[in-house]
């Protein structure tokens, strides 16, 4: 509301600025005279110079004649003959009070974002009560700058970048994790998804290649199948796309978060609706996540980590999972949690010495040490 009031005030000022001179009278005389006034100034200055002895008498005389000649020429040409036009003035008044606000408000409504509040960084940090998220990302980035060959670090930060909308960075992170840790269907699909997001939802050849390689290793990879289906639709291969969506929907669990989007895509294809470069449900997830406050995003990252921890508590027989958890805690700066996790792993894996050895090694790699389990 305040914005509209302020805009109204500004507009009124602008209109008044144009209106004020239209109401004024008696400017004509001064105007007609000013052309001659320059020459009168010149004559006065010439007189001053002559008195000060700056120019010789004969030169001053020559200059005086020159000025007089020019002055006469102007007077001959005549001063501006000014007219008063009532019709013109009415037109000008209309322009000031109707035309100007119309142009301004019309243009602004077309291009402005009146509903968006300012978001200065300090305020946003205060609103979320901390700057931890920035700090966490910065910490991971600093770590990766120092150790660019840490594939697991890249794997942790990739999804965070995706959620932050930094798709270029996300693609780089996933590509690095693929390169350093070896390609898996999940990594390939994530990389492909980042590429799709970079291009605003378009499944490019690069992305398609990434999805294809994911499907080659794991034909059931949902993320890859989803984007392949979108790509088929985008390239106009309607029948193949419909088939791909149908098989995907058939094999989906009833509560799959992407199911609605998939059905909408299928309906769009069958209904013959024009194809848009539609972002997929995972993309929608990202958009939804991006709509969250920093606080919520913070929770989301924590959620990812605690989800992993919970999964490992349930099925601890996964040395790679433990390694990822340690890595996540370390890059997030939660050393104590990392140590606690190691202690917990020792408890859960008691009796599985080969798995435990791998976990211990992962912990040692990450510089985690903890006293022996009680």
């Amino acid at each position, binding site marked *: 509301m*305040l*914005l509209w009031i302020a805009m109204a005030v*500004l*507009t009124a*000022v*602008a209109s008044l*600025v*144009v209106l004020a*001179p*239209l109401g*004024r009278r008696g*400017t004509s005389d*001064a*105007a007609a005279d*000013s*052309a001659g006034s*320059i020459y009168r*100034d*010149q004559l006065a*200055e010439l007189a001053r110079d002559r008195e000060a002895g700056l*120019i010789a008498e004969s*030169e*001053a005389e*020559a200059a005086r004649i*020159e000025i007089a000649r*020019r002055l006469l020429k*102007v007077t001959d040409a005549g001063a*501006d003959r*000014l*007219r*008063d*036009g009532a019709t*013109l*003035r009415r037109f*000008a008044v209309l*322009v*000031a009070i109707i035309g100007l606000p119309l*142009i*301004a408000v019309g*243009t*602004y409504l077309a*291009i*402005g*974002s*009146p509903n*968006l*509040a*300012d*978001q*200065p*960084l*300090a305020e*946003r940090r205060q609103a979320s009560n901390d700057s931890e998220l*920035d700090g966490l990302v910065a910490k991971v980035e600093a770590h990766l*700058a120092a150790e660019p060959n840490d594939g697991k670090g890249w794997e942790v930060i990739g999804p965070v970048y995706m959620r*932050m*909308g*930094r798709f270029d960075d996300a693609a780089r992170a996933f590509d690095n994790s693929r390169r350093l840790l070896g390609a898996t269907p999940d990594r390939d699909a994530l990389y492909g998804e980042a590429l799709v997001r970079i291009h605003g939802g378009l499944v490019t050849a690069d992305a398609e290649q990434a999805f294809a390689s994911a499907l080659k290793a794991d034909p059931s990879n949902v993320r890859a199948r989803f984007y392949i289906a979108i790509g088929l639709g985008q390239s106009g291969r309607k029948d193949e796309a419909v088939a791909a969506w149908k098989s995907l929907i058939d094999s989906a669990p009833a509560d799959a978060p992407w199911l609605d989007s998939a059905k909408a895509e299928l309906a769009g294809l069958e209904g013959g609706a024009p194809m848009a470069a539609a972002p997929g449900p995972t993309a929608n997830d990202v958009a939804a996540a991006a709509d*969250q406050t*920093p606080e919520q995003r913070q929770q989301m990252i924590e959620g990812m980590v605690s989800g992993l921890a919970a999964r490992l508590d349930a099925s601890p027989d996964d040395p790679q999972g433990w390694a990822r958890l340690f890595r996540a805690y370390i890059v997030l700066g939660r050393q104590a949690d990392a140590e606690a996790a190691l202690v917990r792993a020792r408890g859960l894996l008691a009796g599985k010495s080969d798995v435990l050895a791998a976990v211990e090694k992962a912990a040692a790699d990450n510089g985690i040490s903890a006293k022996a389990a009680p």
Partner: protein
Amino acid sequence: MIVELGHYSLVLALALAIVGFVLPLIGALRHDAQLMAVAPSATVAQFVFVAISFAVLTHAYLVSDFSVANVVENSHSMKPLIFKISGVWGNHEGSMLLWVLILALFGALVALFGRNLPLRLKALVLSIQSLIGVAFLFFILATSNPFLRLSPAPIEGRDLNPILQDIGLAIHPPLLYLGYVGCSISFSFAIAALIDGRIDAAWARWVRPWTLAAWVFLTLGIAMGSYWAYYELGWGGWWFWDPVENASFMPWLAATALLHSAIVMEKRDALKIWTILLAILAFSLSLLGTFLVRSGVLTSVHAFASDPTRGVFILGILCVFIGGGLALFAARAPSLAPGGVFAPISREGALVFNNLILTAACATVLTGTLYPLVLEALTGGKISVGAPFFDMTFGPLMVPLLIAVPFGPLLAWKRGDLLAASQRLMAAFLVALAVIVIGLFLAGTGSALAILGIALAAWLLVGSLSDIAFRVKLGRAPLAESVRRGVGLPRAAWGTMVAHFGLGLTVLGIVASTAWNSETIVTMKPGDSVEVAGRTLAMDGFLPVAGGTYTGTAVRFSIREGGAAIGTLQPEKRFYTVQNMPTTESAIRTFGFSQLYVSLGDVKPDGETTVRVYWKSLITLIWLGALVMAAGGTLSLSDRRLRVGAPKPARRAVPVAAE
């Protein structure tokens, strides 16, 4: 709310510019005083609203409001304060906003201080100025809006291009824009005169100071840009005949010509039509300079602002203003009354000579800059026109002009005496001759060209002093008398001397730094040393550096002269983490007017480093000369006297130039 208010202010400024263009123009054509009176207030209000929106954008940068797309793309919360501010115009959108801000400022200045301008001329000038404003504001809002928002806002910005994170960005573009946009005032006056169908004294009285001011800013802006490129890019070069450099150099040449022809116009009421044409050309070249950078057809260090999608819009603006201006000129110029006559050998004649050569030089640069583009468009062939072309065409063109410079101020108006002028330049001639003889004796015929160049510089330096020396009767009258005369001389005369002297300094710097420079590229390890220009440069070791958004390594060198340490140099290699971009920071130490310049190449893990060491003789004179030129312009600008060039009665044998 603040951001949106800034956005709305910009839109309001556009609306006011449209009104400020239409109403005063109708008023002027229909002789309606009230409608014409709208022009000043609309112009001032336009400036206020643009200023509000510029302040808002700056505020968004200062508080890192990442809901503004422009801030995200060009800023970072960790960036030092100065670069947060200069980052506002370190990108296409923001720099266009700065351009419009200066445009509106100049319009407002004319509105506020043009009290003695005839009403009709003033209304027309401000109307044209508003039309330029309309074009640029529309361009900004339609294609380059800095107030576009992002929702949700990213958490961090992408940082500014590291090359632009330099104090140079805070100074170079504003100065250059002040120069470019200053030309718009002369342009508006020229168009107004063409519409009005007459040019009177008020016209010349106004055009000269504006041109002079624009020229001073252009001079400083170009010099600053050149020095920035010199120390930032790490190649040790100060001018590359890069298309974008040429784009700023061409308006300078045209403005220099305009500045001189405006003198003739103001004093002698002659060269009117030519002056108008020059005013149109100078601004056209300024527009070209502004847009060549952004069109995307050129690649250069200025490519930060390029985006080919704006090409059509840009082409449209260029066509309207350049084509429209020239068409109006062709239609109306013949109806303007020609001015006074003069003999070929006279002050006017000398200034015409200056104009001819400067425009020819400008045309040469234009050809060299645009020819590759035209050729590529027509035949698809790619050629590159580089320094050799310009050295062979531009250089020889300038030599006769430089020789003629000292003669100009010594010739009288209307009809001059070449012989008398030559006699007064005898001292300069002798000094130049002495330079040649001594130079050839010392350096041999091998560097004959350089020695001739130095002689030319000496001729300019002493010749520019000769005029003043003669006028104050230096050595021919008691010193007190000379001082009294010196004080009595108009500041414009001193300005001429200072500016021409500065030109001499620049020529000296160019010749000396080109002829006597040395470039050494060596691979060094800590402990190694290299000899350069009688000094020893020893590599001491590495140290880490970090700041803002970069980390990097510096190498410390110590300089020794005759065994004694006289200082250290610390060039750096930096890596900007957010932009993911390495940069090289050179280190420079000045000895007298010469400079020792060190920059780093590859650093290998074992500490073996490629080091480029340059010795540049008298190179700082290039920029000092430009500063002196600008000082001369300012001095002349401060001369608020009215000027009438009174013709001398023909019978006087030895004319004395009157100011």
